[in-house]
C-alpha cells in the first residue's frame, strides 16, 4: 500500500519535473514546480517526516514559489525563449550527457557508501519534538549561523533592489 502511494507520488513528481524543464513560458514552469513540491511533500509524509512535509509546503510551495511568480509577473516577459541557430541541438545532447553522467556518479556513490547498522532507537523519529531536540543540542551552532545567513541574504536582497545599482 505504501509502495503504491510512493510510486504514484514519484510519478507525479517526475512528470511535473519534466514539464518544469520543457515548458516555454516561465509561469507554467513555476506552476508545475508547485505540483512537484506538493508531490515531494507527500513523499516526506510517507517517510515519517511530518514536520518537514509541513515546512516544505509552507516555505517552498508557499513563500518561495510566490516570490517566483511575483518576479515573473513583475518582469512581464513577452519575447519567447529562442536559441541562436545551429547551436541548440549539440548543446541539448551535451546537457543530457552531462546529466546522465551526474546520475551515474550519484548511483555509484550510493552503492559505494558504507552503510552502518542503524542505531535502534525507541523514540519515534520525525516528530517536531525530536527535531527541536536535535536542532538545539547537536546542531546549535549551525542553527545560529543559519540566522546570520538569513540576515546576510536580507541585506543583500535589499541592496540589490535599490534603484541605483552602483
Amino acid at each position, binding site marked *: 500500500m505504501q509502495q503504491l502511494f510512493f510510486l504514484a507520488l514519484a510519478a507525479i513528481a517526475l512528470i511535473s519535473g519534466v514539464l518544469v524543464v520543457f515548458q516555454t513560458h516561465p509561469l507554467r514552469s513555476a506552476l508545475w514546480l508547485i505540483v512537484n513540491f506538493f508531490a515531494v511533500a507527500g513523499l516526506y509524509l510517507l517517510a515519517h517526516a511530518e514536520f518537514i512535509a509541513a515546512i516544505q509546503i509552507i516555505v517552498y510551495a508557499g513563500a518561495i514559489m510566490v516570490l517566483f511568480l511575483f518576479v515573473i509577473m513583475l518582469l512581464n516577459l513577452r519575447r519567447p525563449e529562442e536559441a541562436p541557430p545551429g547551436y541548440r541541438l549539440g548543446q541539448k545532447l551535451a546537457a543530457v550527457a552531462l546529466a546522465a553522467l551526474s546520475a551515474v556518479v550519484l548511483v555509484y556513490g550510493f552503492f559505494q557508501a558504507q552503510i552502518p547498522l542503524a542505531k535502534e532507537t525507541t523514540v519515534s523519529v520525525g516528530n517536531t519534538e525530536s527535531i527541536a531536540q536535535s536542532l538545539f543540542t547537536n546542531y546549535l551552532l549551525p542553527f545560529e549561523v543559519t540566522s546570520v545567513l538569513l540576515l546576510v541574504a536580507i541585506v543583500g*536582497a535589499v541592496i540589490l533592489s535599490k534603484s541605483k545599482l552602483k
Partner: protein
Amino acid sequence: MVVPLHYYLGLSVALFALGVVGVLIRRNILVILMCIEMMLNAVNLAFIGFADAFKAVDGQTFVFFVMTVAAAEVAVGLALVVAIFRHRATVYADDLNILKW
C-alpha cells in the same frame, strides 16, 4: 509494506538529473533558478530517505538547513534577476555575454 531506501534514492537521482538538464538547456534565468530548487529538493529527498531508513533525526535536521539555504539563495537570486533586468532589459543567459572571451 515499508518503502525501501533505494526507491527514495532512485527518485532522488532522477530528479537531480532532471534539474541538471534544466539548468544546462534553459536560457531563462528564472527557469534555471527553478531547476536549482528542484535539485535541492532531490537532495532533501535523499536525506529524508536515509533518515527514515536509519531511524535517525539528523537527516531531517539537515533538510531544515538546506531549506534555509534555498530560501536565502532564492531571495538573493531573484533580486539579482530584477537588478539585471533593470540594467540590461533581459532575463536570458545568452544575452549576458560581457564576460565571454
